[in-house]
């Protein structure tokens, strides 16, 4: 039971249409042995929370390049908590200025991955920090 794959939701909330990074990450995590739910572009915070709930994912990875992270990410964290999913690891990536990171962490984000992060770094972090198996 302990060796079942970790399940990750890779989501692109908001309006930017650039999903190459999210797709490369999804593909890379597949190669690292993760089960990756990919939900596509232009997700509302509600869609992200619903998908996380129904899929019972261990990790939510948010990719945002539009600059709207200070609005979207805290909202998603809030919805996840409201659904009882506070044990789900939330991470963010994309274009997120360093100055915003402390506020995102205060909102519930566990890690922010900027440009240049390798897939291996993300996979290692996920394995080390995902909630324990039931």
């Amino acid at each position, binding site marked *: 039971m302990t060796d079942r794959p970790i399940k990750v939701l890779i989501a692109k909330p908001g309006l930017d249409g650039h999903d190459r990074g999210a797709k490369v990450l999804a593909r890379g995590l*597949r190669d690292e*042995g993760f*089960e*990756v739910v990919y*939900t596509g572009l232009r*997700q509302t915070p509600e869609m992200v929370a*619903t*998908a996380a709930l*129904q899929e*019972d994912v261990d990790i939510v990875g948010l990719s945002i390049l539009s600059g709207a992270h200070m609005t979207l990410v805290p909202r998603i964290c809030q919805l996840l908590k409201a659904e009882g999913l506070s044990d789900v690891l939330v991470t963010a990536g994309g274009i997120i200025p360093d100055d915003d990171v402390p506020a995102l962490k205060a909102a519930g984000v566990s890690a922010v991955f900027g440009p240049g992060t390798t897939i291996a770094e993300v996979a290692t972090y996920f394995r080390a920090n995902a909630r324990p198996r039931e």
Partner: protein
Amino acid sequence: MSSPAGGPAETRWTARATELCGAALSGDRRSLAKLLTAVENRTPVAEAALRRLYPLSGRAHLVGITGPPGAGKSTLVAALVGELRSAGRTVAVVAVDPSSPITGGAILGDRVRMQAYAGDRDVFIRSMAARGHAGGLASTTGAACSVLDAVGFEIVMIETVGTGQSEVEVAAAADTTVVLEAPEMGDEVQAIKAGLLEVADLVVVNKGDRPGAQRTASQLRAMLAGRRGQPGPAVLITTAATGAGVPELLAAIDARRAQGALDDDGATRLARAEAEVRGALADRIGRSLEDAAMAVASEAAVRAVAAHEVDPYTAADELLAGLIGSGRKDSK
């Protein structure tokens, strides 16, 4: 799993199963999601939960949607969900995607087309990785459907992995099997080959706005006449992306219920029950062979077969006799 029956671990699993089932049955979607995870991971909690839920299932119409990659299965499922919701009906979807044979990882991408129903509590969508199981489904898809059935969804749709010609397992898992084809995918010889099209209750030519859709449908109608003069499956045309033909497809799916295709003693349901019992039996036998007492005999038998001292059939007979003997002792 190694704790003795009735031990403290078993009590804990049963308690957790009871807790999750109770909450899921009263509408808690998070508990439902946790149950499905337990089923996928084949934990002891799942078995305890399924013992409790199975008597409550059997009411939903299980609809399998299968076809080659890119035929439009996810888009069609999304269109059917929309049609069901506008009629106020509840629906669950189990969408299966393949697992990597190399790393065990998977991309579960079927939700991309189904994201319009966030916040709608009467739609529940769950992706499953096939986890090495061949046949177009995961080995636990049937059990996952039983859970969704038990908590009260009227229709449970099973979307298979993109299939080739012979992934027909969905026909046993579903009451109604819908096989999707895209226009111009093959000539008439493809339509008379054995396999996927043989198990179709309904055949759908999707992407009906593409050239050749009508011609493909006519070819399929001509070639899919049933065995021994029986009528073949109906062939419908849909354009899932626009919704054209989808109400007619749903009507054809619903008509199967009226035709008695969902009766508990119907051939499909008997075949499914048989597969479920045999699956559980095979699972039990497999696990019994791993038990301490049997493991020694099992390993000795395997070694004897490898050395060609004993043939595999004799070895199997002896192990089976051993299993039945130990089963008698346990139950006195």
